């Protein structure tokens, strides 16, 4: 299905959220005071006629509190719900996480550029998601699975601070059945961690999984998202140690945003607006921006 990259707005409703109904709420991660783990839920929304491309984001309103940018975690161009995976990080995200099926939230968008999967046809896809950073990638690998034959190996690396914070584990078996190789890591193991063997796992930073992933640099495109330090180190390692082309290492940036349409100025990095020039940037672009201001 053809989707316009840039949503066309009636100028008068640029900042007006449209109400959408929450169909389902799935708890991905339960809050745990002992480990400092915050609750994460996936909201499935009634998307109506809203369509989008993988990697785009929405400005999501918790009515009565305000608006935050949230990546879309489900594939576009298909009927079915639109998923947003949200962590209870602050006032607005906290209200969104606390919402229930049947509640109404507001959305504007979709905004931003996207991951162009056509440019990676015939290549191996390596997805690297650190913590909640897997959420924006989920729509991308899901989209890739819908056209599985277009790509070589699809490898999914997912790491988090502790095993309880890993996302979408309920879907792993399903992914593997569709030919995705999954490797997971946790900075700190718990009692169960060592006793389970599947999927393949390690204790440590997610970058430790690179050695296990049998990366073929000439034919691999990498998609990274996670905390800034992971994007910086992971990207550098893939380019410098594994020899991936810097323009084939793609990442999606996170910034505070108020408008989503290149006006409010909050998301500016050097001379780029993350909301309209991004959020998807290549490692090559970020490294060039980094000469003036660190972009990760």
């Amino acid at each position, binding site marked *: 299905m053809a989707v316009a990259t840039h949503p066309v707005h009636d100028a008068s409703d640029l900042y007006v959220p449209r109400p959408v109904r929450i169909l389902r709420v799935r708890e991905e991660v339960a809050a745990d005071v002992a480990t400092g783990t915050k609750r994460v839920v996936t909201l499935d929304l009634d998307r109506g006629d809203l369509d989008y491309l993988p990697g785009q984001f929405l400005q999501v309103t918790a009515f009565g509190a305000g608006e935050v940018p949230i990546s879309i975690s489900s594939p576009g161009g298909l009927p079915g719900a639109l998923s947003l995976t949200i962590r209870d990080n602050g006032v607005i995200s906290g209200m969104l996480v606390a919402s229930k099926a049947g509640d109404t939230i507001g959305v504007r968008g979709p905004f931003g550029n996207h991951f162009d999967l056509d440019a990676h046809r015939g290549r191996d896809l390596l997805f690297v998601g650190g913590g909640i950073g897997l959420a924006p990638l989920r729509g991308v690998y899901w989209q890739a699975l819908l056209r599985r034959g277009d790509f070589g190996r699809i490898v999914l690396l997912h790491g988090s601070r502790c095993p309880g914070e890993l996302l979408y584990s309920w879907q792993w078996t399903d992914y593997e059945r569709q030919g995705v190789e999954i490797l997971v890591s946790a900075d700190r193991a718990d009692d169960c961690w060592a006793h389970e063997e599947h999927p393949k796992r390690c204790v440590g930073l997610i970058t430790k999984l690179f050695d296990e992933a049998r990366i073929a640099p000439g034919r691999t495109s990498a998609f990274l998202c996670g905390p800034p330090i992971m994007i910086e180190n992971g990207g550098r390692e893939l380019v410098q140690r594994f020899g991936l082309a810097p323009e084939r290492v793609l990442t999606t940036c996170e910034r505070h945003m108020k408008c989503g349409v*290149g006006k409010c100025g909050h998301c500016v990095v050097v001379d780029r607006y993350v909301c309209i020039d991004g959020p998807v940037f290549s490692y090559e672009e970020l490294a060039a921006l980094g000469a003036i201001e*660190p972009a990760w």
Partner: protein
Amino acid sequence: MSDARYWASAAALEGILDRLAAERTLIGPVRRGGDVYFRPVQRAADLCRDYVNALEPPKRWFLPTPERLARYRLPGGVSVPGGDTPRELVFFGIRSCDVAGLAQLTRFFSGETVGRPDVADGPFMARRERTTILSVVCQDPAETCMCVCCKGGPALDAGYDWQLTALTSGWLIEVGSAKGRELTTRFASSLAPAGERQLAEQAGRIAGVVESFHRHSTRRVQSMAAGRMVSQGRLPEAFWSALGERCVECGGCAFVCPTCNCFNVVDAPEAGSGVLPPAGGPEPAVPGGPVATGAEGTFERIRLRDSCQLAGFVRQYGGSYPRATCGERCRTRFFHKLSWQFVARVGTLGCTGCGRCVQVCLGGIGIDAVSQRMTDALVGAPAAAPAAKGA
């Protein structure tokens, strides 16, 4: 370049302004206490005649703060503020630096600057389209004025509807737009074609301002060296942290800047709606931050002016704080104002030389001072004058 030039006597111009004031809202310089502001006036006689510029640029008339963007009732749907068409405004007496600033804001909010005309800012554009600009060429600039060095004046080639220059007798009027031509047609009986002598007088007066600037002013918005240093990221962290030490984070520079456009958007209970935040948390965690109300009632989404110099401008929940130090925020501001990257993107420097940031900055880091520091960082600070022989 303007396509037609006319001459009007002082009395004829006053008559034109009086007629415009009667049918639209005429906004011009007025003196309140010791300061000059752009405010609505009832008749031309109320306008202040001896002023250099208002401390506040005219952007407040295009980006009012706070401004309601949307309104909703809880529980329930979203309602848009309906159909309140902005007033027809006529600005008289705004200076070229502000005309250039407004032109830059218009290109930005129309989406042209970022290559996205599909996301024009409706409220801004509606106001801009209902505005007529009758600018007045500045002939006695302030000591802080620098328009000459960044194409912000004293006279402009475009951006106005009428550009007026006061002559020894009467006014020279340059027409710069279709809206301006409509005015000339309408007030044709009050205007006469400008003669050679009047055009020569205007050219002489403008040349005098330019020459005086080059001869007497030590202030410059930019130098090649400054542009090179900031655009190539060659200024060390110590340079920016030294600036950060001087900045008091008041945001004044952005609020008085005719080109600064950053804003914040918050949802809040509508004034007088009786909705109160829940007990224990009426204050946001950070200034300007969201407050969870969880209440029923009427809310509004409001836009407020913001500044990249203020702490919290890019702070995110979850611990990420990209520009946590004041020095880093200074780097962002001056990169946006002076870098080649933004010139390439916007078409001009992010400064029109009005000098307001020089006037309001409590830390003495107006744009000229920072530019000079950048130049010094490349070429070295000028050597102290050698001591006189035999002293």
